């Protein structure tokens, strides 16, 4: 089937996560069964007559269920998407892209550093790891966002925090007195996070500046470049490596990414205007 033609998916549920972020739960109209994907992959979501955007899959890759996408309403297409309701239909193409190194991380400590909406593409990793908990060492999630009102999946995070086998640290850029947690950039959580740098695989997702400074901090703590993974974002039009928009040095973000091992893009990551 032509990879440029979307498949119709019906919205089962719309969840308003924060003031500008929402989650869509979708099911295929054409076929029964689950949507199979690896953590870190994305789909191209299409709204007829408006346009198409790449959005990471934020659901549980180990469970039979709906296709789940969490996104912010920031552009033309996502703002239209935010107006959709249960039973509305959108087009889906995918899954595309490379995935987080959940296999390579087995036997190691796992450090997840998420910034803002970056928590959504990392959520499937959390589900995956918790489904095979004994395969992994310490699991640490560092999550930074703008204000306490912007904390994504808050109830889920609170539940996760009450588990004794995963460490969760949340920080915000600013808060009112109602917040008794950490205030400050997410990199401030790194010096004292309880991971062993020699045996840790780090997965970072968030605004590029945040990823850059996070890499600096975790490298200072001794995590090698080959053990750091990032998810990079660029303009995408086709998602299948043919339109050229997502070119990133020698890589196509849609095919060779969006998840990259840091040492493989180290010569270009953070370089201006690339």
């Amino acid at each position, binding site marked *: 089937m032509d990879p440029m033609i979307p498949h119709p998916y019906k919205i089962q549920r719309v969840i308003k996560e924060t003031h*500008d972020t929402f989650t869509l739960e979708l099911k295929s109209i054409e076929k029964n069964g689950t949507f199979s994907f690896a953590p870190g992959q994305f789909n191209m979501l299409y709204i007829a007559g408006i346009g198409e955007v790449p959005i990471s899959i934020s659901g549980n890759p180990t469970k039979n269920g709906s296709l789940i996408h969490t996104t*912010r309403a*920031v*552009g033309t297409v996502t703002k239209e998407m935010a107006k959709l309701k249960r039973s509305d239909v959108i087009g889906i193409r995918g899954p595309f892209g490379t995935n987080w190194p959940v296999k390579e991380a087995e036997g190691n400590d796992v450090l997840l550093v998420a*910034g*803002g*909406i970056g928590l959504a593409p990392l959520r499937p990793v959390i589900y995956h790891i918790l489904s095979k908990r004994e395969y992994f060492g310490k699991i640490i999630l560092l999550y*930074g*966002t*703008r204000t306490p009102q*912007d904390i994504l999946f808050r109830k889920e995070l609170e539940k996760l925090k009450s588990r004794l086998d995963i460490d969760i640290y949340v*920080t915000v*850029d*600013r*808060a*009112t*007195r109602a*917040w*008794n*947690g*950490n*205030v*400050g*950039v997410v*990199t*401030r959580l790194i010096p*004292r996070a309880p991971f062993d740098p020699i045996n840790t695989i780090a997965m970072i997702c*968030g*605004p590029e*500046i*945040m990823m850059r*400074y996070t890499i600096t901090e975790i490298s200072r703590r001794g995590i090698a470049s080959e053990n750091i993974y990032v998810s990079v974002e660029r303009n995408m039009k086709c998602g299948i490596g043919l339109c050229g928009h997502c070119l990133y040095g020698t890589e196509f973000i849609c095919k060779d990414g969006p998840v990259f091992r840091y040492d493989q893009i180290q010569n270009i990551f953070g370089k201006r205007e690339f």
Partner: protein
Amino acid sequence: MESLERILVEHPFLKDLSPEHVHLIVGCARNIVFEPNKFLFKENEEAHEFYILRSGKVALEIYTPEYGPITIQTIGEGEVLGWSWLIPPYEWNFDGRATELTRAIALDGKCLRGKCEDDHVLGYELMKRLASVFEQRLYAMRLQLLDVYSGTTPKIKK
């Protein structure tokens, strides 16, 4: 006094400070505990203490008319708090509120200033460590200023 000296020696901020110098400043030190929501200091109050946090968390707050008090940073275990004791007019710039039970060593500012004036080597050692703290806080503050999670509208028009 002896146990206080031991605590100081083990604190990351004073790492590698010579035992003689630790002994010099322990005279300015006392153990202190703050209950949750108690204020360590308030804006414009005389800054007469330097805090070395052992456990807990302190929120640095600025009061705004529109939104009330806003927390701009939290400082935690292993970190230090306050340098207004060092710089005239020796007044706090923010409010400091313990968000949970917080244990600290409080060093009297005037006493510390005096010791640094008398022993410049001690002064330099403390200054070096403080400079490193300033650098980290400034760096973190600048990243915070970028407001990276805010969305698409550019902060500066191109």
